[in-house]
């Protein structure tokens, strides 16, 4: 689960990670009250959406820049009106963009130098890894590719926690000394505690900055959480912003379906994540384009299949459907009955290819054949994929 920058910074403050003073506003009426909490002077106005590249983004009304510097609070007040309620398109949002529902005002900090700091899971060692770089404010992937020597990684032993020597190594790698070193050490320690205690999947501060006064601040904040651990963090779960999620994905999650929209025209309905991914792949392999990832899970009840069909058909680009079920333990006949009922209930007009395999498959195929529905049966995944690709071509 992702949260907004202003929410992440509130979390940082709770853990003693210094951030520039800021206040969020959700309506024009709240602009003045939010700004009243900040001192007079240079102010940043920041669009709050769950996507990177905001500063270089463009609003669909033509206004450029989702993050703006303003010389004073009056200018910030006027600027915020250009962003709130508008749709911001960035390199990460896709062409549809995201509607800005919250604007965040912060004190514009004096920047001496920008750095990069992040904590995430290192899969190879099964440990948290702290990543730091002297190259801040730019894409870290670019730094990793072009100047890997400018990136330092510290893996934390979960049995001991972040050790003092590791903090010293990070500070040295960033080239910080004196008051800056002391402040950065405290920030790194507190950020690690924040990561660990909240079951974060990733915390990223880009840039982390030093100021002429010797302060070290998180100028930006990107935090995501491990969905599996949300059950023990109700205060974090409450930060979820459904406006940032695809309504079809939200609907799917109500039925324990795992759905992700893609931009093709062949929808698929599959049991199992690996099989669902490779069903998308095989559609592409035979010249089609998948419209979605959809895993109905191991159980796949009739209700789930009906819900899945409705969600798939909510995508106007869909021109055909491929159902691929390997019913290992599940009775294929029960699934076949679910498909027949679902197709009748939604009044399906599009081509449908069904590949069923596994337990009691003959009865399942007989049910499909006797249903009178105009569906096509596929024997193997390859056969089924080729058939649906032909039917939508």
């Amino acid at each position, binding site marked *: 689960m992702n949260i907004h920058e202003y929410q992440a910074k509130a979390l940082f403050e709770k853990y003693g990670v210094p951030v520039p003073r800021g206040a969020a506003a959700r309506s024009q009426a709240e602009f003045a009250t939010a700004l009243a909490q900040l001192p007079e002077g240079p102010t940043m106005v920041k669009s709050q959406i769950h996507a990177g590249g905001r500063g270089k983004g463009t609003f669909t009304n033509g206004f450029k820049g989702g993050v703006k510097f303003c010389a004073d609070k009056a200018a910030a007040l006027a600027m915020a009106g250009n962003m709130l309620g508008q749709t911001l398109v960035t390199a990460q949002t896709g062409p549809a963009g995201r509607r800005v529902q919250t604007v965040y005002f912060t004190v514009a900090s004096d920047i001496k130098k920008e750095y990069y700091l992040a904590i995430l899971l290192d899969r190879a060692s099964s440990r948290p890894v702290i990543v730091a770089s002297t190259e801040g404010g730019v894409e870290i992937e670019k730094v990793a590719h072009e100047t890997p020597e400018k990136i330092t990684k510290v893996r934390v032993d979960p049995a001991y926690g972040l050790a003092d020597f590791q903090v010293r190594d990070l500070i040295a790698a960033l080239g910080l000394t004196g008051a800056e070193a002391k402040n950065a050490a405290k920030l790194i320690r507190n950020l690690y505690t924040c990561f660990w205690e909240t079951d974060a999947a990733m915390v990223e501060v880009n840039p982390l900055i030093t100021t002429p006064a010797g302060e070290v601040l998180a100028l930006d904040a990107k935090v995501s959480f491990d969905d599996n651990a949300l059950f023990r963090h109700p205060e974090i779960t409450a930060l979820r912003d459904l406006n940032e999620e695809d309504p079809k994905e939200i609907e799917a999650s109500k039925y324990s379906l795992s759905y992700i929209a893609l931009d093709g025209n062949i929808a698929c309905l599959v049991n199992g994540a690996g*099989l669902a991914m490779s069903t998308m792949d095989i559609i592409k392999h035979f010249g089609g384009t998948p419209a979605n990832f959809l895993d109905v899970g191991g159980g796949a009840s009739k209700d789930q299949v009906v819900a899945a069909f409705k969600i798939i058909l909510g995508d106007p680009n869909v021109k055909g459907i491929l159902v691929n079920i390997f019913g290992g333990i599940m009775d294929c006949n029960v699934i076949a009955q679910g498909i027949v009922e679902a197709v009748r209930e939604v009044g399906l007009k599009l081509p449908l290819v069904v590949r069923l395999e596994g337990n009691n498959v003959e009865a399942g195929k007989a049910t499909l054949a006797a249903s009178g529905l105009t569906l096509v049966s596929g024997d193997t995944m390859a056969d089924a994929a080729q058939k649906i690709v032909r039917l939508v071509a």
Partner: protein
Amino acid sequence: MAILITPTTKILIQGITGEFGARHTRLSLDYGTQVVAGVTPGKGGQHFEHQGHRVPIFNSVAEAARATGATVSAIFVPPPFAGDAILEAVDADLDLAVAITEGIPIRDMIRVKRAMQGRRTRLVGPNCPGLVTPGTGPGSKGGCRIGIAPGYIHRPGHVGVVSRSGTLTYEAVFQLTSKGIGQSTCVGIGGDPVNGTSHLDVIKLFNADPETHGIIMIGEIGGSAEVEAARWVREHCRKPVAGFIAGATAPAGRRMGHAGAVIGSHEDTAAAKIAIFRECGIEVAATPSDMADALLRSAAARGIKLS
């Protein structure tokens, strides 16, 4: 011969009285697996009954292992308590703990994995279908089935299968069995980013097992486990290996069902892993329908018989 488990392996089920655990305990008993004990704290002294089987239930893993000689545990405990259940199996010095549970917090698994260092227990999973060593009875009955895989699709033989995905494993096994090619052992290592046994661990075991003549390795986007295994195969494996990677069409940064199936960089895409498979002499299946055939091609090229 097989790896990790044989038809005589004695297993216990943690979470035997839950709906999920009970259902698959019945299926394992039907398959002929030696399920000798169940563990549910607070229900010690009761029995799990199914068609003439009477499996004793214990309050703790240590007690169950002592009383019955069980050496392997299958864990069906719900996610908030599953990390603790794994540690209990480790503390009882079992040979193998197989965590079927999906949805264990990553932080719990980080701590569990650290706590397992230096201990004798091997962990398979979590978020996995488990293992099957097929038996010689009808529908491969009489084998050892740990977890949730359909037993009847197997056939005893000489191909080892290792995979992060349950249904793709069944797909591969079904193709093999349909062609009359049996399996030594099939191992589902699970779809989580922090897991116990890796592709490489299993491939080393298959390579050392004289009864395994060929290997199918199934992976997906995210992480570098398949790459690590492929590089080892190039240097050390003398057996034909076929591979498949799911997720060629997955968008970057999205979790594709499995917690670990997410593209993090240009190095963990399907295309990158497939390229390394090819470099390492692994016969790549063009589609999931091609997995068994890919292994047959690789075996034929080396003059090795699989059935």
